């Protein structure tokens, strides 16, 4: 690793002023316990589903577990008798958090990220794609975790995309804890075979520009290749759950949606990271991801025309 590119040093973020977007999320995600409505649209809400209407969002978890957000008023939680309270944090930090972000102009992306040289590099993919495991493994190589599972983008500056530091603790399956060297903590719930874990290189708690969005895929040989042109637009629409929340909140027509995609496509470097999911070859993929992430801070990784070369 050259002198010009170093992982961001863990900092004492308590002394740093928070960004308006961070303060907004802190304020809007404050919660109280109380009565929540059963519907926002005049028909009952099924378990594990949500409704959004105007400035309100209602999510029903498992059983009689409701989360009602009203813009400017925070979240009200109604918890039925059979609810596992540990699952509450999962809902609050997951779909509820993404809905609050979306309804306040922030864009949630289903991604985990590390920090390097004052920027964030995010890895995205469907559930089970290996986002958390990869970030935990990169933390084992000295790259602090920036977020796990949900990345919130602040689009208020038209010239750059800033992302907010993660609000969730790292969650890993037992085998991922073993493979990555993360320090395991308590089990996240009775129902899920996952543990909270502490990333080896710690976390970064300040907003950073998003340097690259990397799509995780499975394939026989490890390689990272740039994504260009129309594929950028298509890939940006892959992120179904968070995209749905954002689309519902913003109520874009297609022209506005295209403009939104166009901005992201222009301002975000994107790549695909194909690697075998074979446990024996896990370290090979992590080493490649590390080279990519660290190399993003240098001009050495860029070809003369400014595009990204293939790394394999």
């Amino acid at each position, binding site marked *: 690793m050259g002198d010009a590119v170093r992982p961001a040093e863990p900092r004492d973020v308590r002394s740093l002023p928070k960004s308006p977007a961070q303060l907004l999320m802190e304020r809007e995600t404050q919660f109280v316990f109380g009565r929540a409505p059963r519907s926002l649209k005049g028909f009952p809400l099924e378990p594990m589903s949500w409704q959004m209407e105007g400035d309100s969002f209602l999510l029903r978890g498992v059983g009689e577990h409701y989360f009602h957000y009203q813009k400017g008023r925070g979240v009200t939680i109604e918890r039925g008798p059979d609810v596992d309270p540990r699952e509450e944090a999962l809902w609050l930090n997951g779909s509820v958090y993404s809905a609050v972000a979306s309804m306040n102009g922030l864009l949630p992306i289903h991604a985990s990220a590390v920090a390097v040289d004052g920027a964030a590099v995010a890895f995205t993919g469907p559930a089970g794609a290996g986002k958390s495991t990869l970030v935990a493994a990169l933390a084992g190589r000295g790259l602090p975790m920036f977020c796990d599972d949900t990345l919130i983008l602040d689009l208020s500056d038209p010239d750059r995309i800033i992302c907010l530091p993660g609000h969730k603790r790292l969650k890993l399956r037992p085998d991922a804890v073993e493979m990555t060297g993360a320090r395991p903590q308590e089990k996240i719930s009775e129902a899920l075979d996952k543990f909270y874990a502490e990333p080896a290189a710690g976390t970064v708690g300040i907003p950073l520009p998003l340097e690259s969005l990397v799509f995780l895929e499975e394939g026989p040989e490890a390689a990272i290749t740039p994504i260009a042109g*129309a594929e950028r637009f298509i890939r940006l629409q892959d992120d179904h759950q968070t995209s749905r929340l954002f689309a519902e909140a913003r109520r874009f027509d*297609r022209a506005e949606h*295209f403009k939104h995609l166009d901005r992201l496509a222009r301002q975000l470097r994107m790549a695909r990271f194909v690697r075998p999911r074979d446990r024996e070859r896990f370290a090979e993929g992590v080493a490649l991801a590390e080279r990519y992430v660290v190399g993003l801070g240098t001009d050495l990784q860029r070809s003369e025309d400014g595009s990204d070369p293939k790394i394999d």
Partner: protein
Amino acid sequence: MAAIRKLTERFAESEVDNEIVIMRLDTGDLFSLPGTAAAAWKMIDGTRDRAGLIKALASDFAVTEPEIAADVDELLVRLRDQGLLEQG
């Protein structure tokens, strides 16, 4: 022959990484025009007819008109089928 006109009210477009990316506003379908197709798209300005388009492209790419005529025709058919063009 009549000029070829883009049906601009039907789509949004952008140029990213030397590709023209087009979204049909009624369906949300995305189309990509790379390379010479992108060059041809840019030359469809509402004044050129088929012959004018072939002539301009041949000049730009330093090839003869017969060499590119079939490709241009194929592209025009595709764009018309996708509802992005009309030839008045």
